[in-house]
């Protein structure tokens, strides 16, 4: 009876009017009429990993200024949606696949091009790039990174990243050891002094792009064959894993390298680790620095430059296998127009602006990579010993990533497997690598 009474109370006309009003508002809000149609004056929506609204470093500050300048000079308003650097590629692929909220243009990593192609997520830019005034000025490695196996161009390269070793000069008076055998000897001596010889990222996805990539490839290992099939279960990869195991078991590197995030960098920044396996961009984040002699460099992203100038810090190519050449992975942060982009014409205006020599050079310098335009290499900012070394290292030892159709999955699986092998020395390397390889290849 009480329920019936409540029901009749709720059925009072004033309640019904209220309920219907709420429903009406909800339907109006959900309807297409509620969404403004993209007008010609809509800002260009882009996805990047840069934080222009709340700049965290020199790169972000440059980007915020560049967007303001673009609006001032060309009247092009840009809405940058900051994305996690490690997830921007998978998120863009997902947005295209699910026809979700898409940017008009997005930052992407060229090493993931095959994954984008497998998912059909990018617009073909061959005609646009080939006709662009900067086309003939493009660095061949940069153009190759944006070119699919069928010869079509799917992205516009932004700058070129490579990997290298930063080391404290006072810990290595004879220079940084060239190969793994010499390194182990030097590392034992450093251990006697209570120092770690090296620090590098050993966990998560990007580990397989850095020090681990260089090491495995120098030993003769490969991540994939020409068809994109994983080729991890080889004696060469097992040799590289054995070297990594020695480093951890003998206490030559700290176990911090297997912590999530970038905790391991502190060891180098504080002078507790002699060397750091990083990238050409690391100087943006690598501060403050305190040398083993106790000298501090705390000039934001200019700290590395100051330490280099003071002779406290030096650079070396990645560690090589005995008798082999070092290998450095070239990755080219690029721009791509996703399939379904609402304003591709505006996206091309943005690209035209940022591919001008002045802008392209500034973008590369702010991001810690070499410019993709050959003419920009003569810019005064890239004539310092640091950039001369980066260029030489890149030219001599640069290598592109093998084609992987499921990039994040491959990198995750490989990093997890190597991590497990290093942390558990009782496991058989070839057996575990074979299992991981089969698991990846089965999902093709």
């Amino acid at each position, binding site marked *: 009876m009480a329920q019936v009474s409540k*029901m*009749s109370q*709720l*059925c009072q*006309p004033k309640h*019904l*009017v209220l*309920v*219907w009003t709420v*429903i009406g508002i909800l339907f109006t809000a959900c309807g297409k009429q509620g969404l403004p149609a993209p007008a010609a004056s809509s800002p260009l929506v882009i996805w990047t990993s840069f934080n222009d609204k709340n700049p965290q470093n020199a790169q972000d500050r440059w980007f915020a200024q560049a967007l303001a300048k673009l609006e001032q000079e060309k009247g092009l308003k840009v809405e940058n949606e900051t994305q996690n650097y490690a*997830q921007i590629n*998978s*998120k863009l*692929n*997902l947005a295209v*696949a699910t026809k979700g909220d898409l940017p008009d243009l997005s930052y992407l990593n060229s090493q993931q091009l095959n994954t984008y192609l497998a*998912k059909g997520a990018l617009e073909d830019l061959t005609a646009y790039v080939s006709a662009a005034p900067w086309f003939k000025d493009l660095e061949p490695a940069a153009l190759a990174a944006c070119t699919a196996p069928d010869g079509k161009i799917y992205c516009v390269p932004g700058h070129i990243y490579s990997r290298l070793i930063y080391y404290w000069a006072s810990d290595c008076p004879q220079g940084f050891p060239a190969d793994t055998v010499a390194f182990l000897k030097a590392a034992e001596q450093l251990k006697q002094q209570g120092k770690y010889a090296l620090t590098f990222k050993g*966990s*998560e996805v990007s580990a397989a792009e850095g020090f681990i990539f260089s090491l495995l490839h120098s030993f003769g290992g490969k991540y994939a064959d020409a068809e994109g099939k994983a080729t991890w279960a080889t004696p060469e990869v097992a040799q590289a894993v054995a070297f990594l195991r020695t480093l951890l078991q003998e206490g030559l590197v*700290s*176990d*911090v*390298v*297997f*912590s*999530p*995030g970038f*905790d*391991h960098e*502190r*060891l180098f920044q*504080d002078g507790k680790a002699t060397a750091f396996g990083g990238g050409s961009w690391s100087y943006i984040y690598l501060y403050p620095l305190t040398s083993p002699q106790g000298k501090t460099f705390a000039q934001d992203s200019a700290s590395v430059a100051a330490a280099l100038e003071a002779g406290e810090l030096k650079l070396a190519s990645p560690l090589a296998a005995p008798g082999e050449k070092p290998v450095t992975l070239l990755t080219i942060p690029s721009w791509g127009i996703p399939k379904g982009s609402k304003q591709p014409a505006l996206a091309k205006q943005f690209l035209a602006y940022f591919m001008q020599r002045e802008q392209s050079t500034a973008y590369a310098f702010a991001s810690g990579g070499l410019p993709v335009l050959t003419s920009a290499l003569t810019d005064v900012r890239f004539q310092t010993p640091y950039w001369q070394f980066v260029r030489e290292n890149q030219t001599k030892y640069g290598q592109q990533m093998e084609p992987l159709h*499921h990039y*994040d*999955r491959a990198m*995750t699986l490989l990093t*997890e*497997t190597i*991590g*497990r092998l*290093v*942390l*558990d020395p009782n496991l058989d390397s070839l057996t575990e690598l074979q*299992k991981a390889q089969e*698991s990846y290849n*089965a*999902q093709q």
Partner: protein
Amino acid sequence: MRLNLSLPRQRLFALPLLATFFFLLSIQVYPLLACFWMAFWRKGQFVGLGNFHFLLQRSEFWESLQTTLIFGSLHVILTFTLGFLVALLLNHRRRSTSFYLVILFIPWILSQAVVGTIWRWLFVSDYGLFQEWFAPFLHRTLLADKVGALAIVSLASIWHSLALATILLLAALQTIPPELYENARLDGAKGSQIVWQITLPLLRPHLSVVLLLLSLRNMNAPGLILAITDGGPARATNTLSFYLYQLVWRFGDFDLGATLALLILLLNALLLAGFLQLEREKV
């Protein structure tokens, strides 16, 4: 003044209910059905149980299941035990109970991302407070250690869920008539005897609800793991819910993700059935 409505009132009232029903259908039932549908397809091809067969053959799935069971057991047993002890204490301290409950509730109102970040910072290698405390005894970085990382995630999870267990158990404790305790004491029963002979038997109808809520919450939420360890080191904290997150949001594999989601749903259902069976046995 009353509105003159042509339709009968009940029918007018039923229409908004119908709208709500369709709304719920679209956000709850439709995704579930879509999940079922996707689990039987692979890249646009119908594969029957192929996705299930594929996933069940992967060592990653079994590793994640094992991690889920270890993590889940630690979480449920320790959270329940601690929650029960705290609830017992609060049940006796009636004057300051509200104050302690507010303190206890602080972790509960925080999101998993915030809780995860706090616990990650506590164990950061160089300046983490707890890492500093434990380092002289353990000589290792806990976040880089497979057992250590799982322990940290479990501790964070217990800290976060303790309030839920405590409040539910405290509410249950307060349904027990105080006369029973008084009579027991008069009969010479000691503290532990009272707990085992009176409190726990009378709490039994409520225990399965608490245990079920703790289990389901733990099994289905990857947030803490994402914030603390990102599933590492070397998959040591990669639970089924985190594996699902990886498959869908990092690898963009909706078909396998849907398959795994159904397997997790099945595990949830089994868990629920187990608890319901326990309830029936009690009756």
